[in-house]
């Protein structure tokens, strides 16, 4: 059964040092530049305001999934959690409109912010699942290792997600969307 989870705000607030690193800025080096810091913070807040994060997830016995979707590292797992997390389309639209207005700096910062916000959300949800299912594999996403990124379409369909479009390349829209899998060693939980 597919479940939905709406995260708390702190579960997708990215750490500043990491999000700024994505913009190639070192937090400790720019922290004295107050105006810049304030601008980053305003974009951070704008990102938080317009994002509509949600997680679609389900757990299935590993044998029910196609073999090509299961990465080698899941060896020994009995069940697999699959989840799709997204920040929604608003953030894409905002980034695009900033680009159209030639506000490249703000668009780049917001893009970095959104990527890291999604990663923070995945981390938080990962921790949540582990509390529920116990011992598991490392988190995995199609596109890495020996699993083709086009398996995203299968996951989106499996999770019955309607608001996410998967292009033939496997890329998902909204752009700030990821699919993840974790294998669980204990079949009972």
């Amino acid at each position, binding site marked *: 059964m597919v479940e939905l989870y709406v995260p708390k705000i702190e579960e997708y607030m990215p750490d500043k040092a990491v999000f700024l690193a994505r913009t190639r800025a070192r937090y400790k080096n720019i922290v*004295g530049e107050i105006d810049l810091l304030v601008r980053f913070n305003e974009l951070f807040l704008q990102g938080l305001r317009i994002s509509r994060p949600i997680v679609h997830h389900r757990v299935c016995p590993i044998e029910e999934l196609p073999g090509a979707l299961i990465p080698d590292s899941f060896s020994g797992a009995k069940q697999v959690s699959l989840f799709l997390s997204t920040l929604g389309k608003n953030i894409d639209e905002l980034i695009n409109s900033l680009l159209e207005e030639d506000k490249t700096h703000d668009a780049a910062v917001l893009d970095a912010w959104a990527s890291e916000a999604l990663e923070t959300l995945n981390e938080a949800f990962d921790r949540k699942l582990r509390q529920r299912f116990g011992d598991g594999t490392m988190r995995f996403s199609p596109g890495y290792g020996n699993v083709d990124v086009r398996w995203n379409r299968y996951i989106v369909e499996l999770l019955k997600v309607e608001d996410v479009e998967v292009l033939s390349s496997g890329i998902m829209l909204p752009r700030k969307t990821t699919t993840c899998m974790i294998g669980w060693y204990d079949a009972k939980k």
Partner: protein
Amino acid sequence: MRRSEFLKLLEKRVLFLDGAYGTELLKRGFRGKLVEVLNLESPDMVRGLQRDYVDAGADILLTNTFSANRMKLTQYELAEFIERINTKAVEIAKSACKTDQLVFGDMSSTGIFVKPLGELDFDEAYEIFKEQAQVLVDSGVDGIIIETMSDLKELKAAVLAVRDVSRDIPLIVSMTFEEDGKSVTGTSVEIYATVMNDLDVDVVGINCTLEPKQMLSVFSKLAKHSRKPLCVEPNAGKPMLAGNRLVYRTSPEEFAIYMRDFVELGANIVGGCCGTGPEHIKLMRNYIGERSPVQRVVTKEQFIASRTVLKPVEPFLIIGERINATGKKKLQEEIRQMNFTQLVRLAQEQEQEGCAAIDVNLGLEKVLSQDHFKAVINELDRYASLPLSIDVQTLNFLEVCFKEYVGRAMLNSATCNEKHLLPRIELIKRYGGMLVVLCMEKDIPEHSEERVELAKKAVEILKAEGIELERVFFDPLVLPIGAKKDHRVTVETIRKLNELGLKTSIGLSNLSFGLPERESVNAAFLSLCVDAGLGAAILNSKEQTTMSVLRGALMLKGEQLVKVDQLEEEPLVNYILKGQREQVMNLVQEMLKEHEPLDVSQNVLAKAMERIGQLYATGKIYLPHLLLAAETVQPVFDHLNSLIATGENRLGRVLLATVQDDIHDIGKKIVATVLRSGGFEVVDLGKNVPAERVLEAVKELKPNIVGLSAMMTTTVGYVKETADLLKKNGVEVFVIAGGASMNRQLAQQFGVYYARDALEALNLCRRLLGGEKA
């Protein structure tokens, strides 16, 4: 908790302080006058809030005792409960703790400025703080925080009081600043940091007044100058009215994001002030998480400071020598009679001549009392702005000076004799400051080697006492060449001390005592000394040759004196700014020979005050200067008004009041002073004035304008109540509101005008009476 344990904890991780009490208790239904009363009447309400803070992740809980000092409690007729309110607060906070939270006793201002800015005696302030600190410490707090202080002198009294109660209690101090990094009393955050570097406090912080975004740049200056661990507690924005409720606009997420920046800037303790609640603390804690404090880069520069002026001692410190009553009978006699006119003039002149500090030597000390020294320090604080070098021989007089002084002064001087040196070291340990050590004991050694040996001996004593050598100047001693003394011994001593990495300072003019062409001799010698590494000199800054040669000698070393910012103003403005009432009156009397009193009042004096207003508005002068100027012109205005026919002489009548249940008076008094100096008649109804009383007074006195002050979030609603009552009764009068809890948006919602400060109030009053409708 011991200080060493607390400091160790601060090294390990960033700690989280709780949020607001006043605004949060209001939100939870408190409707009384003073939240501290809840400790006795409704302890569960306080405990409930503190439990929420603990659940939110606070490591440090403050006791609900912010206003529980005798001075404040007296205003609410609660002084007899001081012990119970404070004791109970500690008990409640401890009962709210769940694991290893710390309970810090919360202390704050008496609400009255210490002399010379206000009426409160330093010793009185000290006793008030000591009484509260004693109760809190006896009740078992883990530490003390002194927060939301705006007067550095009052803070100093509080610090000394806490330390005299316990040397081992962890102590956090926190001042409140405007966005420009200055307190309302004109002290910059850099001066605050510099003074606190010396005082025996564990953590230095800033809180209140500003929201996180505005506080960032102020905090970054603190981080650059403070050598102590740092604490920060911003407000959650300014209050706004939503329905009947005051709300603060900074959301928990905005608060958390900015608080992360403070941590990156070097904060060791983060918490919230007005408008923050458990939800702010919780999100901040979750977002920042467990984190080691950032290692900051702190400036190594040494500074001396007065209340409003900070001067680096590098590359060269010029100390004006002319306040020296030794051998100046007239000056000595004036001082004895508590007449400081000449003394203040000398200080002001030396500032104009380019000195960075003023040496103060009152001559024959046995004819003077402690009151003389106290008065001199206060007069110079009030009328002059440069830091002082306190050249006083008698130890208890020296202590009076250092106790009363606001800033970081130089103690001039101690000898290398342990018995002479140790008590002076104690003074700078207790009160802060830099020290001049003379390279001598009972007698002055003939040769440089012996002088250097004595300096080395002093260095050992200083090190053993924990005094950083950066805080010390060594005086190699300058002797009169007229008495056949070899000036090269001094130069050689400077060179050797410089090689040892020690700072040096000389009293220059002694060299040429009794000689003709003193200026040339002094200048030539100073040049030799600078080349040998001299870092400071007490000299006669009127000697232009000496000053020019000094600049040249420094340029040859690739250094340059920091340019002195001097206010180039017309004489009347200068006289007013310096508080020279007699000169202002003389100038006005001259003008009255050719002009009408009304003309002089409105076109000369009022214009000069307008200029002073501009200087204040652009940050060139500070509140103490503005107040001094207002007080200086007031009697002159009064004199002119007495010459003008009734009715013509005043711009209008303003009725001022602090609203019901609010006992804060300082801001309103400042506004009254500035309005009077601007030509308004002011009637001050005082503090804690109910709306009905304002209405009665308006009906009786028929003012043009009513000015209402509200400092507290618990009382700001009375502004609306008063304004509504006036409207309801059909009274046609302009209502202006101000005070820490007011803001422009809130004023709009209340249907009143808003003035941010005294100057804005003056300009607004002028504008309103120039044609705007009520």
